[in-house]
């Protein structure tokens, strides 16, 4: 693996985990009686940027390297389902995350102007869904990496 590919993989994982962590902070802070909307807006904004960064770096690694160097190893190994199911699900579910995060950011902007209970509930559900997807994607990444052994 070349240095740029190594950095791309590292960036994809760490920036993605940071984005999930920021979304977790959004969710937990949001549950307070009097959340700081400015703080929430900042967290959600950075989470969206994080997901976009993880998407871009992951795309580079996936398109340039994974298909020709990692996927064949997994398919020939003891855990081919790590690609056939886990990676296939992960790479497609991930695409939805940046848009969900962007929608969350817009919703927080709305709530900053007016606190509506129904929109608050919608925000809570959206943040929770992003978190669940993020947890699945992070776990999937570990399974896939673990299967990539010759």
């Amino acid at each position, binding site marked *: 693996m070349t240095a740029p590919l190594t950095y791309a993989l590292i960036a994809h994982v760490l920036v993605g*985990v940071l984005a999930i962590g920021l979304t977790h902070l959004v969710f937990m802070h949001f549950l307070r009686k009097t959340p700081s909307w400015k703080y929430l807006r900042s967290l959600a904004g950075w989470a969206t940027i994080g997901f976009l960064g993880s998407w871009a770096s992951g795309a580079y690694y996936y398109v340039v390297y994974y298909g020709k160097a990692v996927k064949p190893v997994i398919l020939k190994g003891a855990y081919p389902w790590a690609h056939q199911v886990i990676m296939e699900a992960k790479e497609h579910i991930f695409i939805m995350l940046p848009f969900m995060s962007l929608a969350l950011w817009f919703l927080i902007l709305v709530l900053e102007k007016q606190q509506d209970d129904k929109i608050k509930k919608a925000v809570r559900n959206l943040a929770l869904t992003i978190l669940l997807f993020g947890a699945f994607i992070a776990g999937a990444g570990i399974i896939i990496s673990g299967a*990539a052994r010759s």
Partner: protein
Amino acid sequence: MDWYTILIIAHIVGVALGVGGATFAEVNLVYAKRDGEISPDENALMQSTYAVLRLGFFLLVLSGFGFLLYYRLSGAEELLYSSALWAKFAVIGILSASAVLMQLRLIPLLWGSAVSITSWYAALVLGVFARGDVNSSYVTIFSIYALAVVTMYYILQLIHKKFVPHKEH
């Protein structure tokens, strides 16, 4: 200093802050409830403890993923399928879920506290075993963890009964 050493230090700091934070969160809670009410100062102290605990958690998770990347990039992928490691992931997942449920007031405080403290100490112990030195199955590890949570619940109940005024129960 190589990356592995940096990750070890970051992970240890995260665990120290988290385990210490979780321990002191309970100590502070019992201490604050001794006179039957939680004063603003006591509440502020607990909030700062929770902040340190959260910092520890994020440091732990971030450095943890750093380790996973290290294993991947250094050819030690088999460690990623260690049963102790996956038990640790599950414990951390339960810890996160418990924090959410406590915030939503969907689980009793004592159970939340029991899960929190047990999970932090379990994460510490499992982190030592995750390098592959122990071959216990996931089910065995999880059974011990579940038993530890229940045991901790009854220990905390005893502590609260002894130090916290009866009307609080």
